[in-house]
C-alpha cells in the first residue's frame, strides 16, 4: 500500500494532456472586460486556442494575433506588435487593455516585447490615443517552458502586478482567485461567500462566458473583471487563491508587495475541502458560517450517502488534467471510498514534490497509487492495454476520450476542454453543489455502464 510520485520516463509525448503556456495566458485575458490580447507569434497559436475555447464553451472569444510570417521570423517582428496594437485600438473603441502574449517563436527570435511596450507608450499611445485609457501588458509565455497551467499563473500575476494600486484604506473585500474553472464554479463560489455576507473581488468574473442569444445586439462572450477590480486587489482584506498552481503567484505578489495576506488552497472540491475554504473565509473576514450553508452541506452529504458506499466504494479511478483539479478530485474520491489509483499531471512542475496534498497522499493512502508528472495519455493507455491496470472510472477532459471509449471504461468529463458532452461548463465541481454533481455524475456514469454491459443492472430496478 503506497503512493508513488514519479515522472514519465519517456522523452516525448504521445497524446498530450496539456497544451502550452500561451493558451493559459489567453484564457486569463478573456476573463477581463474591454481586453483583447495580442498573441505575438504564428497565427495557429491563437486560432486553435480560440477554437478549443469555442468547443468547450460553445462561444467565441476575441483574441488577436500579430501574425508572424516568414520575414518577421527572420528580421524580428516587433513592427507587427506595433501595427497590431494600433489596428486593435482603431477598430475596437472600447478596448482598454491589450496584453501582449509571447510564444515560442517570438521568444526564440528574442523580440523585446517589454521594449516595444515602452516605445508604444511613449509614442503611439501619447500621440494617437492621448484621450484613451490604454494598458499594454507584456506577458512572457514561451511555449517551451511550463505548460498552460504556468501560463495561466503567470498571466494572472502579470495582470495583478500591472494594475494593483494601494489606496488609503481597505476595500472590505477578499480577493478570490479561482484558478482555471468554469462559469458554474464561479457561481457556486460566489453563492457560498454570498451566504456568509462576504464581498469578493473574483478573478476572474467569467460567469458571462455562458452568454445568451438575445433578441437584439451582439452579445459577445467575455469576462466581466474590470480595471477597477484589478486595481483594488491591493486593498483587500486578504487573498484566497484556491489553486496552488493557477493564481498563487498573484496572491504571493499581493502579499509581498502590498501586505495583503494570502491563503493558498485548498481547491474546494468535495465536502472537506469546501469546509476548509469556508473556514479560511471565516478566519480572514470574521464572518460566521450561516445556517443556510449547514443546510446546503447537509443536502450534499445526503446525496453522497445515497451513492457512496453502495456504488462508489472500492471503484478504481484514474484522474488526469489540471493539477489542482486532479488532486482535489482524488481527495474527494477517497472520501467517497473510491480508489484513485492513478493521477496524471501533464507537466513537469518541480513543485509537485513539495505539494502538501501530494505528501499527505504519499503518507496516507490505503491502496497502491501512482502520481505521474510530465504525463501524457500513453501513461494511462499503456497501463490499461499492456500492464494490466483495471479501472472502473476515468475522470478528465475530452482529449482523453478514446482511452475510455476503446477500453470500455466509463468516464466523467471534467476540466478543460470538454467538447464531447453538452453543457459541461454549466456544472460546478467546487463547493457543496460541485460535490453533489460529482458524486451523482460518477454514479450515473457507472449506472450507464452497468446497463450497457448488463453488469448487475437489475440492482437499479429497486434503488
Amino acid at each position, binding site marked *: 500500500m503506497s503512493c508513488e510520485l514519479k515522472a514519465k520516463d519517456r522523452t516525448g509525448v504521445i*497524446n498530450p494532456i496539456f497544451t502550452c503556456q500561451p493558451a493559459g495566458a489567453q484564457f486569463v485575458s478573456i476573463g477581463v472586460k474591454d481586453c483583447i490580447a495580442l498573441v505575438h507569434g*504564428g497565427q495557429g497559436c491563437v486560432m486553435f486556442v480560440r*477554437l478549443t475555447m469555442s468547443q468547450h464553451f460553445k*462561444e467565441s472569444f*476575441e483574441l488577436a494575433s500579430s501574425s508572424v510570417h516568414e520575414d518577421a*521570423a527572420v528580421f524580428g517582428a516587433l513592427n507587427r506588435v506595433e501595427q497590431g496594437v494600433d489596428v486593435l485600438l482603431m477598430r475596437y473603441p472600447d478596448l482598454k487593455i491589450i496584453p501582449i502574449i509571447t510564444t515560442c517563436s517570438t521568444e*526564440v527570435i528574442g523580440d523585446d516585447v517589454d521594449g516595444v511596450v515602452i516605445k508604444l507608450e511613449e509614442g503611439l499611445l501619447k500621440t494617437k490615443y492621448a484621450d484613451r485609457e490604454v494598458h499594454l501588458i507584456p506577458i512572457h509565455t514561451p511555449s517551451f517552458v511550463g505548460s498552460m497551467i504556468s501560463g495561466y499563473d503567470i498571466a494572472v500575476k502579470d495582470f495583478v502586478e500591472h494594475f494593483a494600486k494601494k489606496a488609503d484604506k481597505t476595500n472590505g473585500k477578499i480577493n478570490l482567485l479561482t484558478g482555471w474553472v468554469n462559469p458554474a464554479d464561479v457561481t457556486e463560489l460566489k453563492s457560498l461567500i454570498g451566504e456568509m455576507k462576504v464581498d469578493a473581488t473574483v478573478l476572474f468574473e467569467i460567469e458571462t462566458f455562458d452568454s445568451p442569444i438575445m433578441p437584439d445586439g451582439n452579445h459577445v462572450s467575455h469576462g466581466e473583471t474590470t480595471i477597477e477590480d484589478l486595481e483594488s486587489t491591493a486593498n483587500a482584506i486578504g487573498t484566497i487563491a484556491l489553486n496552488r498552481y493557477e493564481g498563487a503567484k498573484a496572491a504571493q505578489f499581493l502579499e509581498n508587495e502590498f501586505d495583503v495576506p494570502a491563503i493558498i488552497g485548498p481547491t474546494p472540491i468535495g465536502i472537506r475541502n469546501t469546509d476548509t475554504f469556508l473556514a479560511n473565509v471565516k478566519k480572514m473576514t470574521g464572518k460566521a458560517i450561516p445556517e443556510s450553508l449547514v443546510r446546503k452541506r447537509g443536502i450534499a452529504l445526503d446525496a453522497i450517502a445515497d451513492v457512496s458506499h453502495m456504488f462508489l466504494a472500492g471503484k478504481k479511478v484514474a484522474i488526469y488534467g489540471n493539477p489542482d483539479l486532479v488532486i482535489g478530485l482524488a481527495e474527494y474520491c477517497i472520501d467517497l471510498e473510491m480508489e484513485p489509483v492513478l493521477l496524471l499531471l501533464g507537466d513537469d512542475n518541480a513543485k509537485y514534490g513539495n505539494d502538501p496534498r501530494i505528501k499527505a497522499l504519499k503518507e496516507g493512502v490505503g491502496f497502491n497509487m501512482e502520481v505521474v508528472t510530465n504525463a501524457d495519455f500513453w501513461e494511462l493507455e499503456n497501463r490499461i492495454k499492456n500492464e494490466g491496470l483495471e479501472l472502473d472510472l476515468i475522470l478528465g477532459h475530452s482529449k482523453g476520450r478514446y482511452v475510455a471509449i476503446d477500453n470500455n471504461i466509463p468516464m466523467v468529463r471534467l476540466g478543460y476542454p470538454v467538447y464531447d458532452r453538452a453543457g459541461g461548463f454549466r456544472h460546478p465541481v467546487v463547493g457543496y453543489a460541485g460535490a453533489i454533481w460529482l458524486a451523482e455524475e460518477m454514479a450515473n456514469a457507472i449506472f450507464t455502464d452497468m446497463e450497457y454491459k448488463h453488469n448487475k443492472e437489475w440492482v437499479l430496478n429497486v434503488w
Partner: protein
Amino acid sequence: MPYHQFKCSECIPERLHHAVDKGETEDLTDALPLGYLNTIPGTISERGCAYCGAKHVIGTPMKDVIHLSHGPVGCTYDTWQTKRYISDDGNFQLKYTFASDMKEANVVFGAEKMLKKNIVEAFKAFPEIHNMALYQTCASALIGDDINAIAEEVMEEMPDKKVFVCNAPGFAGPSQSGGHHKINIAWLNQMVGTGEPVIYSKYVINYVGEYNIQGDQEIMKDYFHRMGIQINATFTGNGRFDDLRCLHKAQLNVLECARSSEYICDELRTRYGIPRMDIDGFGFEATADSLMKVAHFFGIEDKAQEIIDAEYARWKPELDWYAARLKGVKMCLWPGGSKLWHWAHMLKSEMGINVVSVYTKFGHQGDMEKGVSRCEPGTLAIDDPNELESVEAMYELKPDLIMTGKRPGEVAKKIRVPYLNVHGYHNGPYKGFEGWVRLARDIYNCVYSPAHQLVNLDISKDEIPTDKGFVTRESLSDANLSDEIKNSTELREYTGAYDPIPALRKKAESNVYTFPDPETGEWRVVPVETLRNSKIVDVE
C-alpha cells in the same frame, strides 16, 4: 472597381482591395480581391498557420503513420481531435498524435538527440506502424535543428521504418496555405517514386486533394470502384503512406481541392507526364459530369452512366424534396479555401439557394476567380475576413444561415444567424449524390429549426403568441409551397442511414467490385485485401 468598403475597416485602407461586390455586368477583369498576402496584425483574422496547413490538413489524414511534431507540445495538442478525417481501419490518425515536447534546455542546447530518442520511443510504442511523418514547428525551425539528418539516421538504424520530413513551421507563409504548398513539394521530392504498386486494373487514377471528411473519400471510392477504376493512392484522406509513395504510377490525377494540392498535381504532370483533371464531387450535376469526364478518359462511359442513372433514381427525389423548400434561402458561404467554388453554383442550381457572400480564409486569387465566377451578381466576396467584417456583412446581408467553421459559427449564433459546419460538416459526408442530399437535409434542419424561430422574440416588449405548444419544421418550410409539391408522391425526405459509411465498408468486404485486368482487359473480382492492403515494393 466595385471594391467593398467595410465601415469597420475604413481605418485600415489595405483591406479595401480584399473585398468586392460582384457587379451585374462585371467580370473577373474588373474586380478580383487580393489574396494570399500577409495578414494585417490585430485584425482578428481567422487564419491559421502553415504548420497546421501541412500537418493537420494534409499530413494527418494519412492513416498508417505516426505523426510527430518536433516542438513544444501546443502545436501537437491543437492539431489533434480538431478535425474529422476518418479512416476505414480504426482511426489511428484521429486517436494518436506525437510531440517531441521541446523544452527550454532543448532550445538552448539543441534538440536533435532528444528528437531521435523520441522517434525511437514512438515506433516502440506502436510496433505495427512503420511510417512516420515528422513535422518542423516554429521553435524547432528557428533553433535550426537538422531534422532531415535525424530522420536519415533513424532509417539507417531501423531499416523497416520510413520517416518523411515536413519542414513547414507555423510562420512559413501568410496562412495554412503556405504549409499545403510545402508538404506537397516535400512529399513529391522525398517519397514519390520510392514504391512500386500492384496494378490490378487497366484504369488507374490518383485521387488528390480529398481528405475523407466524415467519409467523403469512401463515397467517391465506391463510384470509382464501380467503374472498375483503381485508386492508386488518395492524397491524403484515408490514404496509406506506402500507396502515396507510388503517386507516379497513375494514368491520371483526379483533383478535388486544388487549393491544397494542385502543386503536387502540377509537378506530377511536369515530371511524370500524368495529366491533372480537376473535378467537383459536390452536387448531382457536378458529380455526374465529373464521373463522366473521368470515364471519357478511360473510354468507360457506360460504366459512369450506370452509376449516374442509379444514383439519380435513388437520390434525386430526396434532393428535390429539400430543393423545393430551400428555394430563395439566403446563405453566406464562408469556408476555408475550396468549398466556395465547389459549392456556390450547385447550391444555386440544385437547391435554389442564394449565396449572398463567399469568403476564403486562406485561398489565393485563383480561388476567388473560381468563387466569384460561380456565384451570382450582387454577391460579396471577401478574402481573409476578420471578425468585425464578418459581423458587419451578416448585419448587412441578413442571411438565413452561414456555412463556416465552428468558432465563427458561434459568432453568427450571437447575432441570430444559424450556422452549419463547412469544414468538419454537421452530418456528413456531403460528397457524391447521397452526400449532397445530406447537405440539403442539414441546411433544411438548420434554416427551419422551430427553436431558431424564437430568437427574435423579445418577451419583454413583443406580444407573445400563446396559442401554440410547438411548431413543426414542415409548417415553416411548407407555408408557401404549392399543393402539387406538398402532396407529391415522388418527392421524399432523406431516407439514408445516420452514417452511410459502415454499409459501404461492408459492401467492400463482400468482394463486389470488378476491375478489368491490366493485361487481358478481362473483368474480374479483385478481393478486398488487394484493394486495401496490396504490398508496395521498395524501389531505389
